[in-house]
């Protein structure tokens, strides 16, 4: 009951949804839309679980006055305030919830990503040493693509943007397609293993079972 029923539900839903894909009947499409609606509702509860887990971790830190507990308090307060203004005032443009998003979340997220410009540059300095043939290729491709996307590249040679475009469109595309096909085959086989009950790690271990 504790393990068999979940495996049965998983196999039933997986096989049903695969068969549904090949039946373009209105009832089949209606069924698909209903299941997607259910899927999204369950996903939201999974999100609630994630938030409860974050809140629990930070609450434990605060209540036990562990190291850096003050920052956990900051996370809890910012989570509570965002939830409160979202539910109390709504999510329309101009409301406090969207102001928090526009003036706190977006600037901080983009600054976090822009920080990577510095670290990626220092990583490049360490990595891009033309010691082997492959490293040299990596270096040349990166330099040409970077130069091809800024005006100075065109000033050095009018051909650099074209070469950069060719690298992105042909050899880069070939590598990406090879990776995508590999990922596709791998994930399909993993999906089949989960549906058929061969891969069961998603059941997890709960209370020693």
């Amino acid at each position, binding site marked *: 009951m504790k393990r068999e029923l979940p495996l049965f539900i998983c196999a039933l839903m997986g096989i049903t949804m695969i068969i549904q894909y090949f039946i373009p009947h209105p009832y089949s499409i209606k069924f698909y839309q209903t299941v997607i609606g259910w899927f999204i509702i369950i996903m939201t509860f999974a999100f609630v679980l994630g*938030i409860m887990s974050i809140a629990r971790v930070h609450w434990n830190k605060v209540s036990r006055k562990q190291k850096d507990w003050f920052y956990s308090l900051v996370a809890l307060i*910012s989570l509570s305030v965002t939830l409160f203004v979202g539910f109390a005032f709504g999510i329309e443009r101009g409301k406090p919830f969207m102001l928090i998003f526009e003036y706190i979340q977006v600037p901080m997220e983009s600054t976090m990503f822009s920080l990577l*410009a510095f670290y990626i540059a220092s990583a490049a300095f360490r990595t891009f040493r033309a010691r082997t*043939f492959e490293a040299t290729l990596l270096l040349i491709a990166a330099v040409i693509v970077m130069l091809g996307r800024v005006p100075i590249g065109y000033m050095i040679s009018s051909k650099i943007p074209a070469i950069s475009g060719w690298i992105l469109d*042909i*050899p880069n*595309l*070939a590598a990406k397609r090879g990776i995508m096909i*590999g990922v596709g085959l791998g994930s399909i086989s993993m999906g089949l293993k989960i549906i058929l009950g061969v891969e069961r790690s998603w059941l*997890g271990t709960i209370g020693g079972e």
Partner: protein
Amino acid sequence: MEMVWITISALLTLAIFSFLYKDNPIYKFAEHLLVGASAGYYFVIYFFNSVKPNLIDEVVKNHHLIPLIPGFLGFLILFRLSRKYGWLSRWSIAFYIGTGMGIYIPVAMQANIIEQLRGTMVETGKVGEPPLFNISSFSLLFSDFNWHNLILAINGPILIIGVLCTLAYFFFSKPHKGALGKFAKVGITFLMVGFGASFGYTVMARVSLLIGRMDFLVNTWFRQLFGL
């Protein structure tokens, strides 16, 4: 009032940039603020965009009881935190994973495999353009030999060889020796060019974000603050 929000935004931007010096309390404060605000933001958005219209409005306004089933399944997932009743959460996870995989498998077959092979061998994906692997481009090359026609003719074969060799590199069921080893070696070459291109592209994207933040600090915040 807008200036207050812009100042908050600028101070938080500077707090994040302070990490360039070293991990410090100001950065940690901003980091935890972001974690809390992001989690709250995504939860509220999910609630208003999916739970409210699909569950609450359906049950309360339209008196449809069927959405209570996913509501109940979703509620069961919360038992994951309980040691005693945690096994109940497996039912909803089973529904979620089974449905997800059932939807994903045919889509992955279509998008990751069939469409990629079609794009490689049959069409470019660009409307009005002939396929990259095209015999007529070779006849054009032999009738009028120049750089443009040469590139046009070899693009298709390079793409196909690149895809096949990259796949050969990821084929680990046999040791990379002999012909397979040579294919895999060519595959590494394509992968390195691909990674280099991706790296260059990512660097430029991050630099453009950095320019955006600097532009905000100097042109939006600093100038408005001092009326310049």
